């Protein structure tokens, strides 16, 4: 049984109260957070008040939601009414949203209790959480290593068991890669499956919100709650919420698994662990075959053009006029905007704004942006072909083990290359789940399972069946 159902039953049976539970989690979180840097804000007062309300409901015999009393962390680019939401940036240092993201309303409605806002790379730009303007996040399995990014806080906090689950966002791997690095389960849903209303935009045609949890069942429970149509998001798919939990135990005998060879060029230790996992699937009755996604090597440059172009447009709103920081020493409005943006945006953010603005500027649009959109079509065709033959595809989440803090931050291209296994999935819009498939050198190795658009239920099913055969999700890091 997953942790959510377990706690739910304990609350219903009055073995523990929500206030006791939340106080215990908060006490632990405050100690652990100091070592890991997982939070930008801790919402203790609200958490205890919310827990009291749950206990009152229980003692009154009222029904409670499945997430009632469950402690959760929310990535700091997801709007939470009245709770500071900085996106890891100085430009939003004091910004308090006046509305909730749809996903936050859905979690609150089920009784989920927010313990805080999770640290991240500024505006979700990064793969190591070293780009946060406030502090870096450390990997709970080895605090000298990165937790991945950009949802590094969301993944590390679940890995260290500071909360039961969290929300992240994924534009080019930002849920899956940190989930892989921290040894937890993280789902990037199909584009349009989960509402983006209230998600502070990075690259709108790629961004998706998704759940991160210690085990597949909990991840599926949260996904079932946050998915579904939302009229507030014009790119929301008009489909009902997923019912992953009902399908999670199906037999996977005869499942056709494709293994794209282009994704297996990384670290030997990662590949060896993956191959063992694939052998496990064969033992379980799945058919595992090598396949090819021939345009894979073009995905990264296409991704960085599209993401930067969309970011340059989305981040134009941070101009010191309506919200966020402003430089007050300027007498002219244009100078005010230019100085404000230069002063309060971090280095990587400015760089991507520059790249994006250049790629969209007169004379270069066809050479960069349009070219990248055409390559996106070729990538999509690769996947359409593969899914004619296979139910799912399996790859590593990242080509390497979690790397050392400071190791890649100086060289953008090396950092970008680490996203090789994840960015294509956002370009083609399909869902992907990351789960631990083993350990190497004491560090978790992540496996990525990919499916056709809207196949989240199958992905949870396949991931859960795999998880039943090992204890990777039960291991707890000793943070030191």
């Amino acid at each position: 049984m997953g942790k959510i159902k377990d706690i739910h039953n304990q609350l219903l049976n009055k073995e523990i109260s929500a206030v006791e539970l939340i106080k215990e989690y908060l006490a632990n979180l405050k100690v652990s957070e100091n070592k890991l840097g997982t939070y930008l804000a801790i919402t203790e007062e609200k958490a205890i008040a919310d827990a009291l309300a749950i206990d009152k409901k229980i003692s009154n015999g009222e029904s409670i939601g499945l997430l009632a009393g469950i402690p959760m962390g929310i990535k700091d680019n997801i709007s939470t009414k009245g709770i500071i939401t900085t996106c890891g940036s100085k430009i939003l240092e004091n910004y308090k949203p006046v509305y909730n993201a749809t996903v936050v309303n859905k979690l609150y409605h089920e009784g989920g209790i927010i313990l805080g806002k999770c640290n991240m790379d500024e505006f979700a730009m990064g793969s190591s959480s070293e780009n946060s303007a406030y502090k870096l996040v450390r990997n709970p399995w080895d605090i000298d290593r990165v937790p991945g990014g950009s949802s590094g806080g969301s993944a590390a906090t679940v890995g260290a068991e500071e909360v039961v689950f969290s929300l992240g966002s994924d534009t080019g791997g930002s849920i899956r890669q940190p989930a892989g690095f921290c040894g937890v389960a993280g789902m990037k849903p199909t584009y349009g499956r989960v509402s983006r209303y209230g998600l502070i935009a990075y690259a709108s045609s790629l961004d998706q919100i998704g759940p991160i949890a210690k085990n597949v069942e909990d991840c599926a429970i949260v996904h079932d709650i946050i998915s579904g149509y939302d009229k507030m998001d014009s790119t929301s798919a008009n489909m009902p919420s997923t019912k992953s939990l009902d399908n999670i135990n199906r037999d996977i005998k005869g499942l056709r698994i494709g293994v794209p060879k282009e994704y297996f060029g990384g670290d030997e230790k990662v590949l060896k662990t993956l191959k063992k996992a694939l052998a496990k699937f064969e033992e379980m009755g799945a058919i595992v075959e090598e396949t090819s996604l021939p345009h894979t090597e073009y995905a990264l440059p296409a991704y960085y053009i599209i993401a930067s172009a969309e970011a340059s447009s989305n981040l134009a709103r941070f101009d010191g006029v309506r919200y966020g920081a402003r430089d007050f020493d300027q007498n002219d409005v244009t100078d005010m905007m230019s100085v404000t943006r230069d002063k309060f945006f971090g280095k990587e953010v400015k760089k991507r704004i520059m790249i994006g603005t250049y790629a969209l500027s007169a004379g270069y649009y066809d050479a960069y942006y349009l070219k990248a959109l055409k390559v996106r079509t070729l990538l999509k065709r690769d996947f359409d072909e593969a899914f004619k033959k296979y139910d799912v595809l399996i790859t590593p989440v990242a080509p390497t083990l979690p790397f050392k803090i400071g190791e890649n931050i100086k060289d953008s291209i090396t950092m970008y290359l680490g996203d090789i296994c994840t960015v294509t999935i956002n370009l083609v819009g399909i869902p992907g789940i990351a789960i631990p498939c083993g350990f190497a050198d004491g560090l978790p190795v992540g496996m990525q399972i990919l499916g056709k658009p809207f196949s989240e239920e199958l992905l949870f099913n396949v991931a859960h069946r795999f998880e039943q055969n090992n204890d990777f999700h039960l291991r707890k890091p000793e943070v030191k």
Partner: protein
Amino acid sequence: MSITKKDIIHVADLARLGLNDEETIKYEKELNDVLNFMEKLNELNTDDVEPTSHVLDIHNVFRSDVVEDSLDVEDVLANAPDRDEDYFKVPSIL
């Protein structure tokens, strides 16, 4: 294609980023590195390929033109760096 200092100044102006000289020099190098990396796409012939701007089969989404509640003026102005009654206040424009 290679980017010159003049290009950097032009792009920074378009992006409203008041870069200093040091930053201008740094971005000239870094942007050239990244754009070289992006040149790889030119290996592919895409003359007959349609662009994909959006992966879902959703085109225009319309709603009925019905008046609904929106944010309260106080909420809208709650995060303003500066205001004057019900307006956002900025330095002079002209």
